[in-house]
């Protein structure tokens, strides 16, 4: 079978995996290294570790079942029923470019926050923005964990504090992981909005290596969460984000008016159970608490 899109991360994988779950529009394969590769039906569910293969979902009664073995051969993926060839297929990075964010400025963050409070789903970390959700032990724990972050001396320390959230919360991707992914997304945007030499530095780094040494604590921590969470963070730490977040950033950047932002947020919130919400909370959190190192010039001067 021929995919319409191939997440570039999949091309780096070799070895064996096993189908662990099958849904109407996604098949999750657990690579032996503990990363989840998803074969998905729609572009909007793409990630750095997904393959978009609509053909697979046209006929429900055929197709893989949990337990099936899958071989990753870099240029292709082989199951007992079919082969997916990647050669010559368009790849998908899930990275942000300067263009994606040029329309972005500080005032939009507060609009995103408003929209989020309006449309967001509770059960996860939404309460971090508004303290009116009760009976959510995860939330209380997250607040405690984050309380120290303001006083933290350096970004490294702040990220270490964050790493305490890895694996915390409900869902197959614990809320904490989504939240951190959101924070990292915010940082990535700030990086792009910042001075050019920093871009040069970032570009000079091998994409498979964490972009900044301050992220060590997180790299260590990702072994402590579920495969789904690990997979999300593994990508985010390398500057790759799920399509729905990329799409959110683009629409917010391009947005002319408030309504467009509300729509963009609503679309993102629709993703997963609380995943979309928690990621956006992290995103807003990143700007509000300015996790970004203060030594940099303030990035959000209105242009």
């Amino acid at each position: 079978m021929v995919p319409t899109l191939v997440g570039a991360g999949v091309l780096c994988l070799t070895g064996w995996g096993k189908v662990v779950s099958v849904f109407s529009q996604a098949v999750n394969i657990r690579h032996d290294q503990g990363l989840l590769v998803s074969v998905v039906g729609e572009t909007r569910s793409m990630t750095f570790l997904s393959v978009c293969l609509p053909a697979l979902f046209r006929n429900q009664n055929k197709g893989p079942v949990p337990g099936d073995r899958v071989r990753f051969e870099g240029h292709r993926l082989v199951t007992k029923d079919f082969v997916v060839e990647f050669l010559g297929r368009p790849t998908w990075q899930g990275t942000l470019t300067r263009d994606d964010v040029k329309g972005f400025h500080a005032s939009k963050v507060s609009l995103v926050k408003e929209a989020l409070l309006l449309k967001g789903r509770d059960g996860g970390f939404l309460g971090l923005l508004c303290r009116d959700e009760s009976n959510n032990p995860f939330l209380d724990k997250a607040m405690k964990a984050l309380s120290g972050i303001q006083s933290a001396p350096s970004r490294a320390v702040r990220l270490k504090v964050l790493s305490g959230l890895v694996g915390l919360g409900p869902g197959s991707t614990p809320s904490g992981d989504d939240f951190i992914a959101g924070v990292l997304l915010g940082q990535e945007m700030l990086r792009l909005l910042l001075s050019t030499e920093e871009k040069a530095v970032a570009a000079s780094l091998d994409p498979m290596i964490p972009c900044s040494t301050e992220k060590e604590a997180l790299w260590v921590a990702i072994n402590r969460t579920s495969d789904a969470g690990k997979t999300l963070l593994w990508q985010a730490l390398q500057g790759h984000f799920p399509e729905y977040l990329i799409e959110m950033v683009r629409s917010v950047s391009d947005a002319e008016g408030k309504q467009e932002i509300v729509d963009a947020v609503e679309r993102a919130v629709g993703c997963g159970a609380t995943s979309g919400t928690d990621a956006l909370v992290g995103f807003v959190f990143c700007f509000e608490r300015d996790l970004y190192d203060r030594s940099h010039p303030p990035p959000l001067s209105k242009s």
Partner: protein
Amino acid sequence: MKAKIEEANQEAVSRIQRAKPTLIDVSIAGEAIPGMKRNMILHAGPPEPWERMCGPMKGAVIGGMILEGLAKNRQEAEALAASGDILFEPCHHHSSVGPMAGVATWSMPVWVMENRTFGNRAYCTLNEGLGKVLRYGAFSEEVIARLRWMAEDLAPALKKALVRHGPIDMKSMIAQALQMGDEGHNRNRAGTSLFIREIAPDLVMLDESREKIARILAFIHGNDHFFLNLSMPSCKCTVDAAASVEGSSVVTTMARNGTEFGIRVSGLGDRWFTGPAGMVEGLYLPGFSARDAAPDIGDSVITETAGIGGFAMAAAPAIVKFVGGSARDAIRYTQQMYEITVAENDTYRIPTLDFRGTPTGIDLLKVVETGILPAINTGIAHKEPGIGMVGAGLVHPPENCFHDALEVFAEKYGK
């Protein structure tokens, strides 16, 4: 041909089964190790010239020279190492093994292990403990000082105690350790305790100050890996007995020098087949990550070669967390190894597999046929000298050493 190979493999494995590793003495490398010279430095893995050595190994070599008084400091040591006046040779070429950098020099104390069935011997230095230690490339004052103390106090005392006690049957001690949750490579807590229990009565009877004895016991007790340097030479003199069996495809050496992973095959004599040393998949100590890791290094993989270590993972569920797995995964690793081995060990047994023998005698042909590579438990060294252990986990040899070995094996024995 097949029949011949199988016969040869049975012979090789039966030698491994019949081996009786026994601790008979504590001596000095220069006196005990065959072919040892004052200007010779033994290192882990396949042959490796100074220029190519990885950070930790260079550090250990420097430390070794300082310890021997061959050099006063790093600069002198590096100059001397590059001068060509120092002979670098693999431990394996001198019936020896060494963990991590595996550096052994003339005056270092060594365990003397004898295979009572075949009479061959194996040697290994004493374990220094964790943190800043020579085998991880550290050569600071404290490291040298500790090595001096080990040579002056620890080793002589152990030697005397061993004389009082008499030879120690390591095979049954290792077998016991496996019953107690060790696998003899990454977990040696039980073995270390067993050794203390064995030697303590004779140690305390020595005509030495209480403080000295206490420090010795405390030192051993404080280092779960103390037993590793006993299990390694035990395994070394065990598999050496199976080396050079004409027609056998059993792997009798696996070792890494931090740059290359090398294997030797019984039927192919002393020839090394090497490939790039891999990176270890595993858990990192807080504050460290894959970026700090040096490539796979050390002779400790001799344990897997002899059928324990990663092959006995099912015996040590406690350490599966290193490889991010459950107790079931541990069992799975061992079950996989049965597919690439010739026999099941008649002494080393695994409680969780209702005392099935550990997979023993890696068969080159089966490895290539199944594509299953030996599973190796191992520690992870920091890529910079002197920082020490940053984690532990699981690693596999590079496929190509087995492929290359098969080429030669088929060349030699294929009809």
